[in-house]
């Protein structure tokens, strides 16, 4: 067999890779399925998604009541009914049991190993396993089905046992904030210049302050562009960093650009006239 046999267990961020649909129904597919069956047998598993063995393909195997293995290639759940919560275990989190809501009955379409399309109905434990395995093919574990608080509690408990997912570490400091810091300082001083006339400043001083504002506005815009570009580069390292999200960065940019524009307009009327 040329395919590598492996079982992915927590923490391994490959589990979050979305699986792609199988396009070629050939020997390689058969080998991956055979390997998955071996992994299932060795671990006493009731079901397995290909990504749990490191192969990001849309393949799910589940054990039926008679012990035979059902091969589901490119499965899609079309219909579902009756949400029921029940305690689940999964090979990816070997020591975790958690209550997960899933549908009691599902109807799905799938292809067999030769690419022929079928549809079936499943209920009870079979439906539950199929749903859990299909979630894996979309890059989600059973923790994707619980609240953020519950998920964090589970990850905290796992961390106590020395299991910490590397990719989930979000930086508490970031170099891109220097761009914000410099912009804020420029904006602060630009804001102060608006009050210069209250202090009986000379024409020359007012002119100098106005020049400072005229340079300040484009400088803040340039700094914000730099902040965004640098921030996106920096964010690539942290998949779960909320402050690295584009929306947050655009919000930070927008606030400062609007402030610079407002002060610029104010300076035009107060100092420029």
């Amino acid at each position: 067999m040329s395919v590598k046999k492996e079982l992915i267990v927590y923490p391994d961020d490959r589990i979050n890779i979305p699986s792609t649909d199988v396009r070629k129904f050939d020997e390689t597919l058969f080998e991956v399925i055979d390997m998955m069956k071996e992994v299932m047998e060795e671990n006493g598993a009731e079901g397995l998604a290909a990504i749990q063995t490191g192969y990001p393909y849309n393949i799910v195997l589940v054990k039926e009541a008679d012990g035979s293995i059902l091969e589901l290639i490119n499965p899609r759940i079309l219909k579902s009914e009756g949400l029921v919560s029940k305690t689940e275990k999964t090979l990816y989190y070997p020591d975790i049991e958690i209550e997960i809501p899933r549908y009691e009955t599902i109807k799905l379409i799938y292809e067999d190993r030769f690419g022929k399309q079928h549809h079936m109905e499943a209920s009870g434990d079979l439906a539950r396993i199929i749903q859990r395995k299909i979630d894996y093919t979309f890059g989600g574990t059973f923790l994707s089905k619980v609240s953020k608080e519950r998920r964090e509690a589970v990850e905290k408990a796992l961390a106590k046992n020395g299991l910490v997912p590397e990719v989930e570490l979000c930086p508490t400091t970031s170099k891109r904030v220097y761009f914000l810091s410099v912009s804020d300082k420029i904006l602060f001083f630009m804001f102060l210049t608006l009050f210069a006339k209250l202090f009986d400043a000379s024409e020359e001083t007012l002119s100098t302050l106005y020049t400072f504002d005229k340079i300040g506005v484009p400088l803040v815009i340039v700094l914000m562009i730099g902040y965004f570009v640098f921030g996106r580069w920096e964010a690539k390292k942290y998949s779960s960093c909320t402050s690295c999200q584009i929306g947050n960065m655009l919000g930070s940019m927008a606030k400062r650009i609007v402030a610079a524009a407002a002060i610029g307009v104010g300076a035009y009327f107060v100092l420029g006239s």
Partner: protein
Amino acid sequence: MAKVVVLGAGVSGHTAATFLRDWLGPQHEVIVVTPNSKWNWIPSNIWVGVGQMTKEDVVFDLAPVYEKAGIDYRQAKAVSIHPEGGEAEDVPYVTIEYTGQGKEGEKELVAYDYLINATGPKLNFGATEGLGPDNGYTVSVCTADHATHANEELQKLIAKMKSGERQKIVIGTGHGMCTCQGAAFEYIFNVDHELRKAGVRDLAEITWISNESFLGDFGIGGLHMKRGGYAASSRLFAESLYTERGIPWIIGAHVNKVEEGKIHYEQLDGSTGELEFDFSMLIPPFSGVGLKAYAKDGSDMTDKLFAPNGFLKVDADYSGKPYEEWKASDWPKTYQNPDYPNIFAVGIAFAPPHGISKPMKSPNGTPINPTPPRTGMPSGIIGKTVAMSIRDMIEKNSDKPTHHASMAEMGAACVASAGKGLTDGMAASLTVYPVVPDFEKYPGIGRDIDYTFGEIGLAGHWIKHILHHMFIYKAQLKPGWTLIPE
């Protein structure tokens, strides 16, 4: 002197025409032929459809803009293309029929040296019996007028609910071969938001129906979303979002008939079903606008110039290869017609070589899968790219297009709002790279995962507001418009 004729003034046609006018000297002519008198920023039609904007907020008159730019504007629909000229004409030309400018119904021949087909799609409501606002029972948000009508119907519905009547709402796609699931997704959450604001959400049963084989496919095979610090698949995200909002879903569905108050559909497993509705917005499938093409001797050669779906053939691989052999290189790069090098097609008007999503059929043989999206950002980029090539072919005498913009090398961004507020609501901001998966370059899902993701948050509303004003500003050719990217 060269004469460039652009058929259509949507995102791609307007982009191509305005840049060409800006780049080419006054000795060259740029003619725009479009049946519409107004330009429409289509993404904001969603807000018109729920009464948060008016038609006037999302359209502007084309005539003054083109007059200022020096573009010869003809408010007319294109009828036929004659790439070899005709019996009495030695030069290629198009025939047009006026729809405005006081010449309604008049026909005219317009000769060209270069032709850009940017007609966009025909909203093919006729593909499903009973679909659409004109001859059917559903509303649409595809045009500003449709969206205005959709809002009128929605307000009547809200009034009924305020008087205590329960109402059924169905939103989604109206055929198995639709695209633009994102627009329907955005509309359903805007409607949900408006009903909550009106205090009548508990009286509405809202249902989603679409041709996606999984919720969150969005016509591009899905993507990863970030929310609250965690990344999750768009399917898990969408399922949780629909569940939170109390919206059940029907997927893998081909709507085959709409009657008054009733939708009939078939699903990928071959089963059929019915859905009752009091208000329904279903996106129609797209097809070519029905342009004909004629050879010099007057014989019909529409099949040579156009694909069977009515879109114009360009430099793509139309060999009809099976799904497992689809490649990124099948997609066009220059958008030049292989038989007539002076004809290009941009935006939705070019014929895609095949789909992006996995092709699927029900056991009855009904195809049910999203067709490739070519709207918005890709349309603008393609329009500008073709304009650059034509500019170089005219001014530098290039014998072939000089610029490429394959959708397999291009990213796209999309914002789906759920409300319009600057301080409340939330939106999904999505980026995809590349639009067409490249399975050779990116083994696995065929896309760069770093650049294919979505984010959930209020900032999406701000982005949508910014895009609305920025692109209308750009399209009106106001100072600095060329600096605003597509």
